[in-house]
């Protein structure tokens, strides 16, 4: 079968999914302390509405969206707010956080089914906003903002992101396998809100079992959803590449999927949408893949937001050997951090404990062009690198530095082992200052 993929650039990193792709979802026991940050999402941090010493119920709102692009935060447990303090997240962002001590007895909550079938579009959107749902693929963009379509704009394709192209991660894979019906239900809710001509689930071929499970269920219930199996290539899970791979369109520089008539929603997000509407359950937990060659028993764990990395690692049997690196997210775009006290957030798709690749020696740029061939955006990373290292930021911006998504294809391919992504991040920051 000739599978499609995105056309430009891309790389084939080792998959390393075998650590956790056969491990069924398990629930993390409630830790003795949760640290829930106000900055769970892209955009402005939420504003706390509870104080130190307050008792909160499971799923109760503890912070409110503070601007248009922002999202509400809910307590994952019933418990007492012991403190409000600064916390540094895995991506080095420091923000306010609630320190919550869970009650010894946790009530059963959000187990009763709600009938939402006759909800209006507005009501659905309102519920999504109220339940603090953000994109769970990693970017954590508030979902209600994404699927509120401005007047005069039309969506003709809803693309569901089941690609999970980052190596190691298997959270979305397990979700599609084990919660097939629920995921499809969530997709149909998004479908009702957007009313697109086509709804397509993009899945890479290393998750064929999930694709078959979805297809079977779709056929059984004759849902208007297509499953599109994609040829492996990183970064296929990026919105721009996924839209290119599934419906063949290209989003121009600086534009959004909506500008080509498409909206992309991650499968994990659609599951959260389902739970929010069918049970009224806010987004206060997520699936995290705890994996890597240094994890004793890699697993896919349903963890409350605010659980600490050390809780997840202990649950996964601890370290089998001392890791060189802890990474939050996937290995291509994830953030390395060192503090196991760091809490997870809505965007934490994985926790990796890995040994570093063999230490290679850096050389000068050979002008080999591997980074150029790998760049899915059509940049010339080697040129940008040399401009940025010579502090010529404006020239770098004129060479489309801001289009760089930091996907890592260039650094991954570079035989000289140059820190190309690092330079891009730095160059963007310096360029914005001017």
């Amino acid at each position, binding site marked *: 079968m000739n599978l499609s993929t995105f056309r*430009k650039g891309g*790389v084939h*990193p080792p998959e390393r999914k075998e650590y956790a792709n056969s491990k069924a979802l398990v629930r993390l026991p409630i830790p003795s302390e949760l640290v829930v940050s106000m900055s769970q999402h892209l955009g402005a941090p939420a504003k706390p509405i509870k104080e130190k010493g307050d008792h909160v119920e499971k799923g109760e709102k503890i912070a409110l969206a503070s601007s248009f692009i922002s999202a509400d935060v809910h307590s994952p447990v019933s418990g007492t707010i012991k403190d409000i303090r600064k916390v540094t997240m895995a991506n080095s962002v420091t923000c306010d956080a609630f320190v919550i001590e869970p009650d010894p007895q946790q009530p059963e909550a959000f187990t009763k089914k709600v009938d939402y079938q006759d909800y209006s579009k507005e009501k659905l959107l309102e519920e999504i906003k109220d339940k603090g749902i953000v994109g769970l693929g990693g970017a954590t963009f508030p979902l209600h903002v994404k699927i509120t379509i401005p007047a005069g704009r039309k969506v003709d394709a809803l693309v569901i992101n089941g690609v999970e192209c980052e*190596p190691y991660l298997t959270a979305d894979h397990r979700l599609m396998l084990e919660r097939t019906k629920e995921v499809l239900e969530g997709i149909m809710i998004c479908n009702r809100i957007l009313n697109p001509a086509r709804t397509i689930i993009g899945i890479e071929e290393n998750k064929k079992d999930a694709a078959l499970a979805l297809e079977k269920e779709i056929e059984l219930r004759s849902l208007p959803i297509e499953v599109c199996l994609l040829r492996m290539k990183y970064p296929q899970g990026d919105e*721009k590449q996924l839209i290119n791979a599934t419906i*063949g*369109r*290209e*989003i*121009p*520089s600086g*534009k959004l999927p909506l500008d*080509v008539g498409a909206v992309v929603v991650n499968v994990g997000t659609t599951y959260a949408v389902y739970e929010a509407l069918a049970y009224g359950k806010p987004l206060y937990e997520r699936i995290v893949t705890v994996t890597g060659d240094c994890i004793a028993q890699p697993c896919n764990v349903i963890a409350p937001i605010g659980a600490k990395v050390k809780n997840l690692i202990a649950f996964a049997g601890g370290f089998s050997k*001392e*890791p*060189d*690196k*802890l*990474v939050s997210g996937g*290995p*291509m*775009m*994830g*953030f*390395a951090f*060192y503090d196991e006290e760091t809490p997870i957030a809505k965007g934490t798709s994985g926790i990796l404990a*890995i040994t*570093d*690749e063999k230490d290679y*020696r850096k*050389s*000068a*740029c*050979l*002008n*080999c*062009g*591997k980074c*150029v*061939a790998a760049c*899915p*955006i*059509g*940049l*010339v990373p080697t*040129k940008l690198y040399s401009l940025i290292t010579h502090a010529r930021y404006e020239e770098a911006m004129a060479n*489309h530095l801001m*289009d760089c998504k*930091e996907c*890592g294809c260039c*650094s*991954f*391919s570079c*035989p*000289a*082992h140059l*820190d190309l*992504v*690092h330079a891009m*991040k730095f160059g963007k920051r310096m360029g914005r200052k001017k």
Partner: protein
Amino acid sequence: MRTVSTSPHLHSGADTQRIMLYVVYALLPSCAWGVFVFGLRAALVLAVSLAAAVLTEYLLDLVSKESTLWDCSAIVTGLLVGMNMPPAISLYIPAIASVFAIAVVKWTFGGLGANWANPAMAGRVFVFFSFTSQMSTFSLPRTIKAVEVASQASPLSLVKTVASSGQSVGLTSMQILAQQGVATSSFADRVQAATGISAYNVDAFFGNIPGCIGEVSKLLLILGGIYLLMKKVITWHIPVSFIGSFAVLTWVFGGLPLGLGFFHGEVLASILRGGLILGAFFMATDMVTSPVTHKGMLVFGCGCGAFTFLFRTFGSLPEATSVAILLMNIVTPTIDRFMKPRLFGEVKKGGAQG
């Protein structure tokens, strides 16, 4: 030790040193053939150029307080210099070429990655124009039993000399070689008898011709080139556009100097002679001095092919491939400036999006 660094936390394993070693591996079979047909003298030439290149790199490292020997690029340069030498050459010439390549062409411009010309090729061109007669006298390979002569010009320059004397109008290069009494190997004679393929082409393909140590065996060079393609050290763009454009031009115009008219060029014979194959797979593909985009590589390769054809067919010296590549090296920054990749989502003016 636990480290924190910017993503990505994975690497493809591509590595400068490994790239250089792959090139060395790809060149070795052809070197071995050169030593086999030209004798130990050829091995000596290779050893001298290799040693001179590595020693120069080492001494310059001392001067600039760097350590660059590990990247193995000096080994590639030294080997290529040696391969581009006639087997019987005085040993100081490859030494000079290697020193020039490493010290002048590479080091003074800032070392590996900053040189504007392929060091080995610039080294060869430097000594070619300094010691032209020694650089154009070639020993016969041991596979050809010729009476009386121990050395002769390469087929390429022989045909050129005869053709420019005007005594051979209307003859193909094969006929000229036969007329001049150029011997062939008994193996090639048998192949010709069995298949009808000219013995001269058979010899040129397998490396039974007088020529530089490392450029005679086209078979082994092509295999080396395929190895580099498989190891993803090079892409097909430069070799294919180089050889392709050369072949087309040769076919259309190559017959003119011999008085054969248009569309009578001898494509196969021309490709198999001289340093074209070595140049197309190993010299023009030098990463440092060729464009970074695939589009740019195609332009670069076509330029190399066109200039090689022009110099070979209409130039007065037999030196064509290396000068052509050198010329295109100069154009490389300009190609890179104008041949940028298409930005994702960018639509050509007036074009519709699919």
